[in-house]
């Protein structure tokens, strides 16, 4: 046996636990869900093949599906955009070198990401409690009557966006690392040319952060498509379906309505949407270059 082949064999052996796990726990479920998406299946009785009926129903009949998709898209286009702006702003502030104790503030912004989802959800029920919560109490002090937050179909999603921003410490961390990679010489050159702070941010910082923004954008988008626990605990989709997000509706179909085939079809549509949006992100990011 020559060295190359032996190395290949050894290499494969070394990663074999992962390969086996990948085949059994990722590839098999993936393709079985594709099959189930073409069936009527309640997990108990044998699946019954129905062709593309589940997809047809989702796309042309089920109006809740579009409400759900709309809610999720709102979180991506409004929520993720706001989160990105806020996190970059915070990262730039935290990157200031000449303030003492900056590492303390960096830790402060990261701490919320260590809180488990369930605890976080219950904490935010409190924070955004319309009658006596912290946010509305503070708003009351400056004469603003706070909204109903999770009790209001209009304000429930903005409530979730606030939560999202609060726990975006991971994003801040990535932006901080990317900011550290920007060569100082660029700023120095700009200063010599007479650029002000805003010009530096828009012409040096943001373009140099592009790969980090792309990464955070894609992972953030996928996280929003998958987000489930917060809405499940806080609102269970209400009021008036305002917080019925994609994963929550998928879960309800799968485990509460016994429509596993329908839920599988939803999962595949989700995959296609996420894939398409990722490709668009990549395209846009290239054009920006």
């Amino acid at each position: 046996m020559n060295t190359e082949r032996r190395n290949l064999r050894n290499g494969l052996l070394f990663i074999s636990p992962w390969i086996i796990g990948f085949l059994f726990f990722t590839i098999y479920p993936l393709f079985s869900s594709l099959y189930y998406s073409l069936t009527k299946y309640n997990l108990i009785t044998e699946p019954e093949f129905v062709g593309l009926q589940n997809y047809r129903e989702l796309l042309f009949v089920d109006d809740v599906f579009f409400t759900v998709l709309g809610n999720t898209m709102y979180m991506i286009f409004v929520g993720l955009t706001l989160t990105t702006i806020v996190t970059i702003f915070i990262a730039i502030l935290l990157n200031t070198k000449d303030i003492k104790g900056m590492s303390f503030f960096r830790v402060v912004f990261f701490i919320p990401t260590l809180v488990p989802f369930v605890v976080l959800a219950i904490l935010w029920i409190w924070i955004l409690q319309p009658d006596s919560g912290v946010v509305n109490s503070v708003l009351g002090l400056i004469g603003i009557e706070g909204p109903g937050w999770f009790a209001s179909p209009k304000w429930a999603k903005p409530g979730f966006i606030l939560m999202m921003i609060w726990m975006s410490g991971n994003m801040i961390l990535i932006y901080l690392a990317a900011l550290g990679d920007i060569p100082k010489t660029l700023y120095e050159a700009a200063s010599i040319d007479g650029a002000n702070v805003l010009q530096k941010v828009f012409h040096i910082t943001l373009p140099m952060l592009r790969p980090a923004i792309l990464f955070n954008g894609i992972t953030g988008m996928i996280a929003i498509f998958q987000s489930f626990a917060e809405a499940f605990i806080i609102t269970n989709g209400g009021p008036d379906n305002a917080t019925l997000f994609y994963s929550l509706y998928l879960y309800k179909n799968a485990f509460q309505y016994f429509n596993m085939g329908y839920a599988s079809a939803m999962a595949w549509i989700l995959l296609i949407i996420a894939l398409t949006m990722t490709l668009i992100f990549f395209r846009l990011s290239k054009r920006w270059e």
Partner: protein
Amino acid sequence: MKKIFVFLIFLLAMSITMIGCSSGTTSDENENTGDSSDSSSSDNQGGDGASAGSFTYWYPWGGDSETWDEWRMEKYEEETGVSIDAVYAPPDGGLSNGKLLSAISGGNPPDLVISNDYALAYGLAAQGALEPIDEYLANAGFSEDDVLEGFVPLMKQEDGNTYLFPQDSNVNLLYYNVEMFEEAGLDPDQPPQTIEELDAAAEALTKVEGDEIERLGFIPWLDAGDGSYLWGWVFGANFFDPENNQVTLNQQALIDTYEWMDGYAQKYNPEKIKSFTSGFGGAFSPDHPFFTGKVAMTVNGNWFANALKLYSPDTEYRVAAIPSPEGGRENATTFGTNVFLVPKGAENPQAAIDFALYGSKQDILADNINTWRSISIWKETTDAIEWENDHVYDMVLDVAASSNSGHPALTSIAGQMADELMSLRDSVIYNDNNVADLLQAAEEKMQKEVDEN
């Protein structure tokens, strides 16, 4: 040397994978062998019924209810020698969160589950996820004639087999604050009986100053009123016609129900109402709006009397039957029945059913009722019940015995229909949408689900 090293790594990798893949089955086998040896040994001990051994039991409750159930299990284990492997499965025995369904389809279900969501349990039975229990009930000496008529339809499916066994039940009542009644010039001895009287009392009890709500007399969708079926049932609706397999949502009774709710929404602004009442705690916390005086009347289960005793002992309250409109169901409630079920593929169903029936033994049943003011499903009552001359319990019994009380929407899609009606209600109260149109659309959608199942 190198070859041996590579071989060892390979062996390690394979064994880790094998262990990973097979842990489920190995533990299953262990359980199986454990079961069979156990059952033979306790058969010899002459247990309660024909079977014994050990069985797995999922229950949904925490807190005091859990303590009570643990007491019952311990007592049963002592008396029979059967060992119970009890698993806490919130929020309803693992029915609504997929835990039970996954266990059944994975071939590793518990032997017995108790659930506080009878509608979902009924749906599971209709989907074929449960084991028929007639044979085991018969072996344990159970006779259907001993059960109150109101509970029999819940136990059975179309095929004539029995799938659910009720442990006990709860009713919903109107709770009202006596002090506030007197303050508003209402007679606490004459609680509202009709919807008109309820609305008038609510109006008199409400305190709004300018834009600020200080107190609301009544909110239809608070507490038990938030359930999808209660008000519709009281207004006289039948959500489903089992004989013709027809969903019947677009009917006058339901139109009236939601238009009545919309009246409250338009008057006080639904967002304001929800903000005003959305405390952090549920009924078992001092934060409930009835305890804090934010609402003067509310509809809730009989167990709420226990919560009042614990968290708001100074509130002077009384109870009455839920007010109903003309042509609706007088003196009625939807039951909140706790049911036992045996999942398909259970290994020791007889032991499970023996335990389920143990709860109906006189002393256990009496203790249950004395602790929780719950309702027995049996025609014959026991002398050990201590609630005589208790005004709440008198009303509980009165409403429970009413022929107007029942389990609405016994269908395979009860859970989905409940969600549909909930979002329909929100659509009406938040957006003032046309009720009849929404009901027609919901009826068609649900009918399609029924036809497909």
